């Protein structure tokens, strides 16, 4: 094991982390604003990949597939929040259980529409070229993934920190009752955040589809990993989600490379430990 091994593994970890940031940041924001643990979040990821495939099959355009898939799934998330979650009011457990029901419905719908095969999203050839940096041969697609996550991260950060809407969201995360008291429409904020979360997860699904594939069961595979991101970073915090994604991405990669037999254990055990010691995560606030 030389430096090259460590560099390549670190690079792979960071690029996986980039993908996880897309899934985790939405989940984190949804929790922060609504206190809902959205168990259908993995389904958004999967649906994003499937819708993108349909767009690619009909139009042949990969670039078009990204926004169409993300917006379509955002619309699904928005409907779910408006029609089903919102009327339940503030009953977190029932809301969580309801999202499970939806996860099952989405699973079946995906199976009916797209079948049970392992599918792959093929990105344009330009993106899959190998990039040579020094003595390292890096897959271009992974660099693209990092770039997308970084761009999205910066945009999200700007929206959250610099706009009126972002300030309202932060206020709602901190204290929803107080926010309502000073006239912030928290119901609208919830709707916006839920749609945004679904949008980001679906985006992750499209981009990750070239990397993980798109197949039944992916939804419940990505979900616990996304939770690890959110928990380590702290729920409701954007910076936390970014750092959590990096930690999980790296831990996952090095775990698999160094101790394959206990690799998932090395991912989830620290997560449980952290939750026990500091339930709000590294960057979360109570």
């Amino acid at each position, binding site marked *: 094991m030389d430096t090259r091994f460590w560099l390549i593994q670190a690079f792979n970890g960071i690029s996986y982390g980039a993908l996880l940031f897309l899934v985790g940041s939405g989940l984190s924001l949804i929790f922060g604003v609504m*206190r809902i643990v959205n168990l259908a979040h993995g389904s958004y990821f999967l649906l994003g990949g499937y819708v993108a495939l349909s767009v690619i099959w009909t139009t042949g355009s990969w670039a078009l597939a990204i926004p169409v898939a993300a917006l379509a799934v955002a619309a699904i998330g928005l409907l779910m929040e408006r029609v089903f979650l919102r*009327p339940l009011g503030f009953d*977190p457990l029932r809301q969580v259980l309801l999202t499970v029901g*939806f996860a099952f419905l989405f699973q079946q719908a995906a199976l009916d529409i797209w079948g049970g095969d392992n599918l792959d999203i093929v990105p344009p050839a330009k993106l899959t070229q190998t990039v040579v940096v020094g003595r390292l041969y890096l897959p271009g697609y992974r660099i693209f993934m990092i770039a997308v996550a970084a761009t999205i991260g910066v945009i999200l950060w700007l929206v959250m920190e610099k706009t009126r809407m972002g300030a309202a969201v932060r206020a709602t995360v901190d204290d929803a009752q107080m926010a309502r008291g000073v006239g912030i429409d928290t119901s609208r904020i919830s709707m916006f955040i839920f749609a945004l979360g679904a949008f980001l997860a679906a985006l992750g699904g499209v981009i990750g589809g070239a990397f993980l594939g798109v197949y039944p069961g992916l939804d419940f595979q990505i979900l*616990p990993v996304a939770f690890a991101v959110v*928990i380590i970073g702290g729920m409701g915090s954007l910076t936390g989600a970014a750092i959590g994604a990096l930690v999980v991405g790296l831990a996952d990669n090095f775990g698999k490379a160094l101790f394959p037999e206990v690799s*998932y*254990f090395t991912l989830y055990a620290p997560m449980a430990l952290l939750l*026990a010691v500091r339930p709000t995560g590294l960057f979360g606030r109570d």
Partner: protein
Amino acid sequence: MTGTGKVLVVASVLVAILLLTPHTGSFMLLLITRALVLAILAMSLDILLGFTGLASLGQAAYLGVGAYLTAILATKYQFGLGPGFPLVIVLGFAAGAATAAFFGLFAIRATGVYFLMITLALGQCVWGLAYRWNSLTGGDNGLNLPGRPEFAIRLADDVTYFYLVFAFFVASLVILYVLVKSPFGRSLEGIRERELRMRILGYNTWLHKYIAFVIAGGFGGLAGVLWAHANGHVSPEDVVLTTSVDALLMVVLGGSGTLVGGAIGAGVVLFLREYLSTLVPWWQYVLGGVYVLIILYLPGGLMSIPQRIRQRRGATSDLAIAKGLAVTPQ
């Protein structure tokens, strides 16, 4: 309905299951056997969710511990396939309880959704080991058991195995029922309703929750042993997140805080999943749809239907009296 009345209804349903099941054909027989095993798991979860107010998203971990223990003992040490089987059952229970005793140290501190998350993380730890620790667990392929135990009784016979599982189901139901009706069970309900008040009254709420968690883990482990031999196969599928979610779904579907509800939920879920799936391809819509509708319109689960009906009837007769139209209701 009075307490005795309810016990009588449950008892007669149980007798009916006991008498009818052996005549239902091999497919149905195995289905009911498996449903009874999962009913034990669901009831163990109900102790946490329904009676203590702790929504655990990792109950499959204990099922997995019991099941893998059985399979590893059987395949690696040829133990538990003869007269050693009763010991395996005890060990399975103990292993589930011990795992819960360890996990509980981390989990019980958390409340609400944080408890949900931490049990999810702990459950994933067990899954990760089952999935990746190839030399011990067989990894993705899992472990195939050589066959069911044979000693004084031949469990290889599906009907005999059904009787065994049925006996354990009834025993679990009775033990858990006694538990929730005991002063300890009442304190758990007190914690569910208002933990702070219980603490002020001098109850050690942490210890109460911890003990409930360990007991639930023990029954989960017991279910695991029976599950391994019901299927003849153990795989990471048994420990995966969706199995924990299933257990939660069973409890909520049947009605949490009722014990029997979890058992009914297990029956309904397994019936939809295994039987309906052989008839129609869109069975999962039914499962998901039923589930969503119950959460939205029947938060008390299927067990609350009789009460709902009574309430509605009560409401209409009250209305009728108010209008001076009805004869005196009984």
